[in-house]
């Protein structure tokens, strides 16, 4: 049979999306089926099962690449029970199951993307260092340690123009240079993998997909600044990232890429993991340092900056996961290559977690300066369910909402800052016309208020007061002047808070007021929620003329607020209704109204 001679590879997406949709089960069935087919069809040896990091288009998971010789076929929405047919028809009979393969629209998701950090995701098995070295991994380390001085290394990073991907956008080469120049017997490099933005998973995907690229970035950074010890501070909510990093570090030690006299040079460096314990503020660098030291993660005033006095008082460079993952590529392919992507002031590419109400949710990597429109429509495929695009939230709790009318702006540090938002770490939550902007602002304030460490008054008390005002507005009890009060208080908190958490916490409110003031006004003046989200301002009822009396709503109602006979229009008792919306979603005849 033909397949015997061909090299067969099966790649199952085990990124965040693949895992959540049962990628592990798919792999298991593949293994079992191939094993049993092995006896009859003898295709065992040519087959290798790869566990591959994020493919990108999570909305289509589980995605499976079946590569026979040079022919690659991609299957989408694979479920374990589909595997036997793929094995039988495609691998044994050499007939791909065309009805399950991806169509042209799948490729349009990739067309506008440029992959640097994510470039080797489909080649590398994150648990096998050899697959990383096979595509040029650790070549940059070799180059730097044997050919470049630390100064030359820093010069290349500076020239590339890369800026920190953790949120603040500080030039990485400059940070390294400052730290290099500080005299000290001991320095540290820390990889910030706390990924606090609730609604983003870029760093998780990078670590789980290609952990060695992050470690390699750390080795190069350590060499450049003169550090001998490194830490990865990773959040405990990412158990798989922890596992893969642990494996990667061990393998790197085994190859003398970490440890003493790395690759026969005089350079010593080792990395340890530190697990976060669930505190957003620990993503802030001084709080992160306190947390690694085993204390409550409270930020402190800067200066002194960590590059002068960081972990245990020693000079420390803190870089984000994605920043570090870019470094090996910059060294390998050159600063000019890197800076050929992006805009004048924002170089390179940026990974975004595209989520919310777009059709193609997933992980994307685009050149800086791409139009927001291209992300939402060309890559994201537009809004799902035929609804209208309303806004996109970037930068998480520190960021803001960009309204639909600004869809033609460039996505880079400067342009987003100009419209009151930030690139942030790369969260991009798309909102449609069923999202209430006041409620979104309240959501973020609930988060920041709960996560405020309490050290400084403006943040501790201020976010609480902001939240109280939003609470009353969404309850229909807003007062005249509340909008102005939010603006005043918000600006004061921004100016007077100790750390970045408080300094940015009011942003979600200020940006929604800026672009959606009328929604705030509708809540306050008319006690109306235009998007029909705020529970206290809506009421559910049944449209008699549409109700068929099927009883679907009656069955799902958790509070037994719906009554009615079969085949006759039902009634919702407003006093008992808890406004959960279950009836609205379940009704096939659009007979439930929300006002």
């Amino acid at each position, binding site marked *: 049979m033909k397949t015997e001679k061909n090299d067969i590879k099966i790649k199952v997406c085990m990124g*965040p*999306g693949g*895992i*959540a*949709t049962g990628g592990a089960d798919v792999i298991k069935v593949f293994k079992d089926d191939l094993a049993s087919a092995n006896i009859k069809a003898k295709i065992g040896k040519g087959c290798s099962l790869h566990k591959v990091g994020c493919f990108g288009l*999570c*909305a289509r*998971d589980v995605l499976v690449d079946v590569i026979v010789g040079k022919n690659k076929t991609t299957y989408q929405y694979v479920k374990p029970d589909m595997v036997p047919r793929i094995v039988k028809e495609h691998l044994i009979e050499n007939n791909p199951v065309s009805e399950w393969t991806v169509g042209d629209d799948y490729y349009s998701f990739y067309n506008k993307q440029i992959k640097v950090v994510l470039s080797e995701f489909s080649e590398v098995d994150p648990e096998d260092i050899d697959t990383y070295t096979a595509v040029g991994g650790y070549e940059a380390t070799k180059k730097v340690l044997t050919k470049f001085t630390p100064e030359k290394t820093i010069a290349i990073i500076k020239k590339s123009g890369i800026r920190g991907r953790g949120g603040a956008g500080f030039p990485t080469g400059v940070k390294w240079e400052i730290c290099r120049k500080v005299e000290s017997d001991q320095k540290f490099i820390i990889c910030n993998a706390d*990924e606090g*933005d*609730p*609604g*983003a*998973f870029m760093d*998780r*995907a990078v670590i789980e997909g290609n952990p060695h690229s992050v470690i390699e970035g750390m080795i190069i950074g350590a060499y450049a600044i003169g550090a001998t010890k490194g830490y990865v501070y990773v959040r*405990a*909510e*990412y*158990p798989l990232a922890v596992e893969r990093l642990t494996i990667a570090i061990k393998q790197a030690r085994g190859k003398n890429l970490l440890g003493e006299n790395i690759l026969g040079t005089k350079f010593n460096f080792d990395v340890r993991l*530190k*697990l*976060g*314990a*669930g*505190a*957003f503020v620990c993503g802030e660098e001084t709080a992160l340092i306190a*947390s*690694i*030291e*085993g*204390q*409550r*993660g409270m930020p402190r005033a800067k200066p002194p900056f960590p590059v002068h006095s960081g972990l245990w008082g020693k000079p420390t460079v803190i870089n984000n996961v994605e920043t570090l993952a870019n470094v090996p590529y910059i060294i390998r392919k050159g600063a000019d290559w890197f800076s050929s992507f992006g805009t004048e002031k924002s170089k390179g590419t940026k990974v975004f*977690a*595209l*989520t*919310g*109400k777009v059709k193609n*949710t*997933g*992980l994307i990597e685009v050149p800086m300066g791409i139009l927001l429109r291209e992300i939402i429509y060309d890559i994201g495929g537009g809004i799902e369910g035929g609804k209208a695009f309303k806004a996109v*939230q970037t930068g*998480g709790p520190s960021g803001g909402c960009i309204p639909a009318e600004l869809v033609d702006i460039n996505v880079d540090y400067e342009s987003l800052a100009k419209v009151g938002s930030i690139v942030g770490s790369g*969260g991009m*939550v798309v*909102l449609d016309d069923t*999202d209430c902007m006041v409620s*979104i602002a309240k*959501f*973020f304030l609930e*988060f920041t208020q709960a996560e405020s*460490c309490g050290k400084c008054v403006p943040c501790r008390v201020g976010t609480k007061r902001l939240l109280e005002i939003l609470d009353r507005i969404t309850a229909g009890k807003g007062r005249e002047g509340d909008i102005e009060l939010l603006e005043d208080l918000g600006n004061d908190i921004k100016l007077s808070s100790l750390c970045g958490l408080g300094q940015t916490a009011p942003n979600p409110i200020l940006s929604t007021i800026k672009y959606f003031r009328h929604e705030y006004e509708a809540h306050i003046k008319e006690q109306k929620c235009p998007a029909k989200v705020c529970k206290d301002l809506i009421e559910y009822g049944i449209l008699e003329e549409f109700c068929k009396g099927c009883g679907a709503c009656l069955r799902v109602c*958790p509070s037994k607020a719906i009554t009615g006979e079969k085949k006759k229009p039902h009634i919702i008792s407003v006093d008992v209704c808890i406004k*959960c*919306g*279950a009836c609205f979603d379940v009704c096939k005849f659009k007979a439930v109204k929300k006002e």
Partner: protein
Amino acid sequence: MLEVSPEVEKKLDGVLQKHITDEGNIISLLQDMQEAFGYIPEKAVGWFSKKLDIPESRFYGVITFYSQFHTHPRGRNLITACCGTACHVKGSERLINSLRRELNIVEEEDTTDDRKFTVEKVACIGTCSMAPAVIINKKIYGNMTADKLMKMVKTLEGKKNED
């Protein structure tokens, strides 16, 4: 100091040894404690405080700061619902509310009276593209609906009845 049984003492000792060999700090120590016991028992804190000569207040300072630490026993089944931004806009709040109602978990509590279930919220588990996401006993599920969730919870209940 509160008395601990020899069996518990052995567990505590294991955690202590790891702490010493790994040059751990209070946070990693507490994480190991929680891994061993499922929560952080008062007795264990007392025991370590004596052994390491660190005041209990320092332990509690750290415990109360980080949301990962729990000072009360948790349910046998742990359901963690994400309420990060992506999940929020895809209706996670309703998911959580209906689950809590289904399991009769009263306000301010997160565990059922019979300690069968604990329902907790977390801010993002990094599965945002498959929102809303839920973790049931360490396994992640994406694109969750109230219906699916209730069914899964019922099979968990069934399992418990069998054994």
